[in-house]
């Protein structure tokens, strides 16, 4: 089973050290982020059990948190996940059209992954970029003021990166 590298384990211990003794469960959310980054962009039950063992808590305590927060993926996702905001202010600025365009362009529905495993499309609720709408999150960063041309460019960029990083 996959395990954290020594470097990541250090990071985990550094996070645990922030809290009072015996309150290591507080590290759960940050450690789940680390685990999702390290182990393929999603949290399998094996990964969650591993995190439980690291923090010395019951696996159910990890499951109940992982299922509550929207950023944790509980099934495999593509290499690039488009998380497009659809709440009020983005809707006022045309997010509905952007979502339709991405669906057509990638040939997938919301929640699906392309056959080549490159792209997943998700719709999300307000990400706090309302003044720069429409927008989406891609990895660690936001892509804002989206247009159809920008979507084309982002898809090209991802495809190029996928080739060079393989």
């Amino acid at each position, binding site marked *: 089973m996959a395990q954290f590298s020594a470097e990541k384990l250090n990071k985990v211990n550094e996070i645990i050290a*922030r809290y009072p003794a015996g309150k290591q*469960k507080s590290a759960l959310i940050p450690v789940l*982020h680390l685990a999702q980054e390290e182990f393929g962009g999603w949290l399998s039950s094996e990964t969650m059990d591993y995190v439980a063992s690291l923090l010395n808590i019951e696996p159910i305590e990890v499951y109940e948190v992982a299922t509550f927060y929207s950023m944790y993926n509980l099934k495999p996702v593509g290499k690039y996940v488009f998380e497009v905001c659809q*709440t009020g202010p983005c809707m006022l600025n045309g997010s509905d059209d952007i979502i339709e365009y991405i669906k057509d362009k990638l040939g997938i529905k919301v929640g699906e992954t392309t056959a080549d495993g490159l792209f997943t499309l998700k719709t999300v609720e*307000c990400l*706090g970029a*309302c*003044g720069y*709408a429409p927008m989406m999150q891609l990895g660690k960063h936001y892509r804002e003021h989206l247009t159809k041309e920008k979507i084309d460019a982002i898809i090209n960029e991802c495809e190029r990166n996928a080739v060079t990083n393989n």
Partner: protein
Amino acid sequence: MGRKLLLEKAHVPGIRNYDVYRREGGYRSVEKALKTMSPDQVTEEVKKSGLRGRGGAGFPAGMKWSFLAKPEGVPRYLVCNADESEPGTFKDRYLMEFIPHLLVEGLIVASYALGSNKTFIYIRGEYAWIVDILEQAIAEAKTNGFLGKNILGTGFDCEIYVQRGAGAYICGEETALIESLEGKRGNPRIKPPFPAVKGVWDCPTVVNNVETIAAVVPIINITGEEYAKIGVGKSTGTKLISACGNINKPGVYEIDMTISVEEFIYSDEYCGGIAHGKRLKACIPGGSSVPILPANLLLKTAKGENRMMNYESLSDGGFATGTMMGSGGFIVLDEDQCVVRHTLTLARFYRHESCGQCSPCREGTGWMEKILKNIEYGKGKKSDIDLLWDIQRKIEGNTICPLGDAAAWPVAAAIRHFRDEFEWHVQYPNAAQNRNYGLAHYADPLPIATAPKA
């Protein structure tokens, strides 16, 4: 030009770096507070300033601090709420991204006042890149002796840690935030006990919004008394407004709460008018939870006075004809926008974000979304409008935390002020699929209510 206390230096090149920030007068408030004031004097200064919590509720910050229990031998915690998730609100992000040291500086002073030796910034998980910016600023402050052990030789120790959330609007509610910080689901707690007595790890805790903490810096620098002179009435100091929707210049603006809503929308200094030369239909001035107002009631109160950008004027008339300052998330709808569709997106948001603890909210938010979807997509019945009204009434006030109210208010206000637009959707479902209701009478001047002659 209004006075700027928070963003004045936000665009000085390199202000993200300690050296530039310090050269521009940064960290003076830490020196002043730690070297010349007692913790209680700092709290007193914040009380005098009249600063109200900038997260949305508007509770006096100094009073909140003074409620903090101080039992002997028990650690106390300051937690900064950077979970900014209210639709329309993106001011804290702006402040943290452009001038992160201002938040760090405010946190050191506030930690000193409250006696917090370990202070946490709980930031929404999606703001991942801002975590790096904040951690860089914290590391620089520490290198320069403003954090760590024995700060400035005063014997005060303080560390600041940044903790990411993972996508949950509810974690902006302070007890849900505390649960989340403890590694649990973000289920709000029943109050009392209040966090000031029993917060994170059962210790006394103060939770303050990013902007509230940042405002402590100018308060200490210029004194609470001077700060209270800015603004009007109980709306003291400056407020960050994040403006979005159908305007020419969306963005974050610092206002001193003396300008009118009309000036804020149409002046080139702020929103620059409605985009594409269109007319104003409606606006939600304080984040998605606060009541939407049609153009006529937004610009003038029911008494016919100019509506101003401050706590009192925005709430003038109560919910019947007014709204709220809230978080300062200012969402503008132009004449071609559909209020039903916009309300539907908000109802969907609250259904998605309900934590599920309380039945009225868990079930009610789902019903409201379904009914609004039916109305929007031409399958609505006339009785649906009354049913929506009934459901929102049954959510409001019947839940552990304010998310229930936050979900009920946008639906209630949309029906209160735009009932004919809802009725049109039900009556002409085919037309409503092809075009919007438009501006209708929503910008027409209203008759001014006057007292009957004796």
